[in-house]
């Protein structure tokens, strides 16, 4: 069981009121914190206290507690992911990676974290001190705010709002502001160049990202993350990636664009080590640098989680009615699989040039994404309901398309002349 409900069942004399915890009821409530206090907390308090309990203040406290959970748990992700990244990189390069600190080097990131905390917090004297200090917090806060809308399980979500995916897009578009702020206030050309590159890249790739999200929204007819996941509850073939051939393409556009959004190789121009030192966070040190790092890995996890929610069934399992790859564990496994894919790509592909980056976005992804929207609309007209027939046709088209793509790709790659060593 991966529900909040499960946590409460063991509670002594706790009445799981059907009015409060049924999923739909809870998920439609914007201010569930107030409901929680009114219906769950106050009845449990002694009467003298309950009469004077400040519900408003309590609501704010519950919201702060939710935020606190995220601020406490999410930084643990980088702790694991950084180590995973280094281990994956090492394996790809036939090394062992960090081995000294702890068994198999598992405590390496912790040691690095402690080191970063004790390092000097250097502020460039010529820079803009206020903005320099503020920038990491903006990026950090925005990457954390995204988690508020991600449904980790049927009831494990902070805010079930109606515009979930749109909110995520809005908040993640603010990260650019933090990046520009960091780059400009450092008073360093590397930082400024990095931040301008990053801003151009994020603003560009937001378009195919948004358009591929739109295909999902068109099929589900809702912006709510909960509704999107619930529409995929009939096993693996009802996952939105297999629902139509167009969402299949949209998934790949979404995933590649989100790699570009989080500035990872092959799209890591904003922090290209060989050209501009470390990009927008060149001048940062100590804990502020760590904040950037945490935000980066939290972002990586967040975009994978969004991809899982939108296309790979979210908390819904492979088979309808069974919890295989479902619930919170399933969600995390699917997300981590995508994170691993990102690492795999990072250590396999070389970095793109600026013109290649922009060409890929504007000349390939955006037209394909528009085509996807058109196609999804037509598909929705032909098959207004998802039937067995529509899913079989969809999967057949995907299968044939993959074979054709594989053959064409194989031929074109084979025809390419080998680069001559000069």
């Amino acid at each position, binding site marked *: 069981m991966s529900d909040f409900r499960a946590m409460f069942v063991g509670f002594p004399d706790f009445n799981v009121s059907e009015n409060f915890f049924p999923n739909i009821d809870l998920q439609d409530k914007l201010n569930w914190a107030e409901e929680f206090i009114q219906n769950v907390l106050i009845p449990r308090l002694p009467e003298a206290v309950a009469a004077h309990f400040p519900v408003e203040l309590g609501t*704010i406290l519950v919201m702060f507690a939710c935020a606190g959970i995220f601020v406490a748990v999410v930084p643990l992700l980088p702790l694991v992911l950084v180590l995973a990244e280094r281990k994956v990189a090492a394996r790809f390069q036939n090394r062992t990676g960090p081995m000294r600190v702890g068994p198999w080097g598992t405590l390496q990131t912790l040691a690095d974290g402690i080191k970063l905390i004790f390092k000097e917090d250097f502020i460039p004297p010529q820079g803009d001190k206020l903005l320099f200090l503020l920038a990491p917090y903006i990026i950090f806060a925005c990457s954390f705010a995204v988690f508020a809308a991600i449904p980790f399980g049927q009831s494990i979500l902070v805010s079930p709002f109606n515009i979930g995916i749109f909110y995520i897009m809005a908040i993640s578009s603010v990260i650019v502001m933090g990046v520009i702020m960091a780059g400009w206030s450092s008073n360093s050309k590397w930082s400024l160049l990095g931040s301008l590159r990053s801003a151009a890249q994020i603003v560009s790739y937001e378009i195919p990202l948004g358009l591929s999200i739109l295909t999902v929204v068109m099929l589900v007819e809702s912006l709510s993350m909960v509704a999107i996941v619930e529409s995929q509850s009939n096993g693996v073939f009802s996952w939105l990636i297999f629902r139509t051939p167009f969402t299949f393409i949209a998934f790949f556009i979404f995933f590649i664009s989100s790699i570009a959004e989080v500035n990872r190789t092959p799209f890591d121009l904003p922090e290209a080590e060989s050209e501009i030192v470390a990009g927008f966070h060149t001048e940062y040190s100590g804990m502020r640098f760590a904040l950037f790092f945490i935000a980066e890995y939290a972002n990586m996890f967040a975009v994978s989680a969004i991809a899982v929610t939108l296309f790979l069934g979210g908390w819904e399992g492979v088979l309808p009615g069974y919890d295989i790859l479902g619930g919170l564990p399933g969600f995390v496994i699917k997300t981590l699989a995508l994170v691993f894919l990102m690492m795999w790509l990072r250590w396999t592909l070389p970095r793109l040039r600026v013109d290649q980056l922009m060409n890929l976005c504007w000349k390939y992804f955006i037209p394909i994404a528009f085509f996807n929207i058109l196609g999804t609309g037509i598909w929705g007209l032909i098959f207004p309901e998802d039937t067995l027939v529509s899913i079989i046709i969809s999967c057949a088209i995907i299968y044939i398309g993959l074979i054709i793509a594989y053959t064409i790709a194989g031929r074109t790659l084979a025809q390419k002349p080998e680069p001559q060593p000069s």
Partner: protein
Amino acid sequence: MDFTLTNFIFYGFALMTVGSALLVVTVRNIVHAAFSLMVTLFGVAGLYVFLQADFLAATQVIVYVGGILVLILFGVMMTSGRLEMRIHIERGQLLLGGVVALALLTLLLTVIANTPAWKNLTDDGTELPPTTEKIGELILNGPFLLPFEVVSVLLLVALIGAALISRKEVRD
């Protein structure tokens, strides 16, 4: 004024909006002004959320913060070397600006005073239905279809114009 969550949120966002808007016009450094504008836009988005216009709030953040403000900052960083500017204001400009500001204030106050729904608005804790569907219906299937399409064409023209202007240098 009794302390309620809604009051608290409202005055918080109002303070945020007005305070940072004041900073935008008083601060000398243009980049600081741009970043204060970000706070203002966030405050306005917060007020939209407060009015349960969630879709509008998210659109506000995407369009203004994620798009327009980034472009403003791009422009500032790429063009101006001197960021601290002393702007000389002549008396004629002051007068003209004052007149325009006064006219705008009168207009806004009239609109606020004459909006009937405004006075009847009470906070009884009910949640209004989500606005997304209604907005979509009105824009794509209702009375605002034509204005929406006209605006789209206008934006398309602006886009093509921008592309044309920026490509000119390549041809020379």
